[in-house]
């Protein structure tokens, strides 16, 4: 790992190039891989951290890289867990990865996860994985590099969204798992809901996704809202959830747009303090409040009971869930 990392960094000549490497790593590395890299890097750069006058520009770039990894570790440590969750990454196909411990699946839930345009679930994958249990969940992560809400399918796998759902169906065996759910963030949100309905999954969750009236979905269909409504009535899946922050009007409108087409629960996250506005990335404030494990426990296990304003643990964040 350290050899690969050093090779990647040796080609970097600017801070932005170092940042590009770290964004790519953050979207790929498991918790164990990240911890291992961090330990090796910290050891190698220990001398330079204390003796700053020895810094060449290359060393400064390496120290910048180390500080980016430390920020990531800090987010991971918000989980409060002393050991890394033992997820292992497996390349299923190009743009599809499975994160699993590869043990028995009978007591596990498979999360079919649709990443947003930033190729992540609103956070580095290691942060997400550390906040769920590797013994309870497997994660099948799909990433759309064309940034078109999976409407173009995935290169080498499917040419359009319908074919992609058929391909996903062929990749998984629902009977092997206790339950199978879909979850999508931002540009992947509606894809998750649509997949849950099409493949008759146990639950579909959109976090900050668009509604069916969004141009991305209207351009590939005559009437996406009508198609979604028809699909909802044909499907046995009724456990659908939309999550958004109360400070972002676009997502609140998307929740309304989605609810106009199909029956969904809407869970809104808001802050009890005035100076904290929960916007599009609703998950990162929850991570920073060390509440993501608690939050994911609430949304991942079906069903959610409706309730009015309720505090999220003992944090500054509150949630309300309505039909």
């Amino acid at each position: 790992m350290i050899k690969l990392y050093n090779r990647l960094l040796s080609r970097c000549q600017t801070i932005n190039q170092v940042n590009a490497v770290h964004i790519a790593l953050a979207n790929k590395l498991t918790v164990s891989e990240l911890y291992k890299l961090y330990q090796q890097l910290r050891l190698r750069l220990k001398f330079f951290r204390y003796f700053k006058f020895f810094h060449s520009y290359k060393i400064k770039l390496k120290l910048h890289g180390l500080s980016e990894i430390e920020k990531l570790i800090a987010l991971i440590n918000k989980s409060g867990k002393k050991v890394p969750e033992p997820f292992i990454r497996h390349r299923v196909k190009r743009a599809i990865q499975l994160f699993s411990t590869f043990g028995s699946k009978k007591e596990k839930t498979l999360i079919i996860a649709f990443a947003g345009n930033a190729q992540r679930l609103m956070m580095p994958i290691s942060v997400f994985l550390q906040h769920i249990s590797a013994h309870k969940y497997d994660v099948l992560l799909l990433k759309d590099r064309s940034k078109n809400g999976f409407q173009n399918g995935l290169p080498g796998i499917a040419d359009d969204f319908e074919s992609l759902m058929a391909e996903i169906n062929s990749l998984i065996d629902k009977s092997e798992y206790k339950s199978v759910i879909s979850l999508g963030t931002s540009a992947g949100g509606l894809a998750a809901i649509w997949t849950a309905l099409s493949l008759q999954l146990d639950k579909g969750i959109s976090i900050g996704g668009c509604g069916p009236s969004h141009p991305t979905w209207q351009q590939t269909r005559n009437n996406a809202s009508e198609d979604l409504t028809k699909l909802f009535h044909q499907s046995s899946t009724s456990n659908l959830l939309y999550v958004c922050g109360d400070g972002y009007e676009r997502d609140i409108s998307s929740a309304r747009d989605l609810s106009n087409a199909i029956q969904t629960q809407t869970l809104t996250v808001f802050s009890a303090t005035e100076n904290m506005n929960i916007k599009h990335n609703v998950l990162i404030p929850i991570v920073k409040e060390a509440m993501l494990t608690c939050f994911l426990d609430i949304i991942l296990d079906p069903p959610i009971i409706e309730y009015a304003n309720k505090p999220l643990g003992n944090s500054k964040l509150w949630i309300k869930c309505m039909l």
Partner: protein
Amino acid sequence: MMGEVNITSLYSTASQQAVVSGKQNIIFEDLNMDSLASMELCIAIELELGVSIVPEQLSQLSCLDGLTHEIQNLLP
């Protein structure tokens, strides 16, 4: 003085053309950019224009107008 554009109206071609031609400005606060988005914007500027602006510099610029002036100053 440049007019300011409502960010959702950027979906319209007319608004996009107005921004590109310099007749309308974009306030960065309206974009709700997180740290990742700031990093990716700086990376894209460096790749496309060969100009190095880091996220810390970007946070001191409040709008697109300020960013374009900064880039012009840094261009060889």
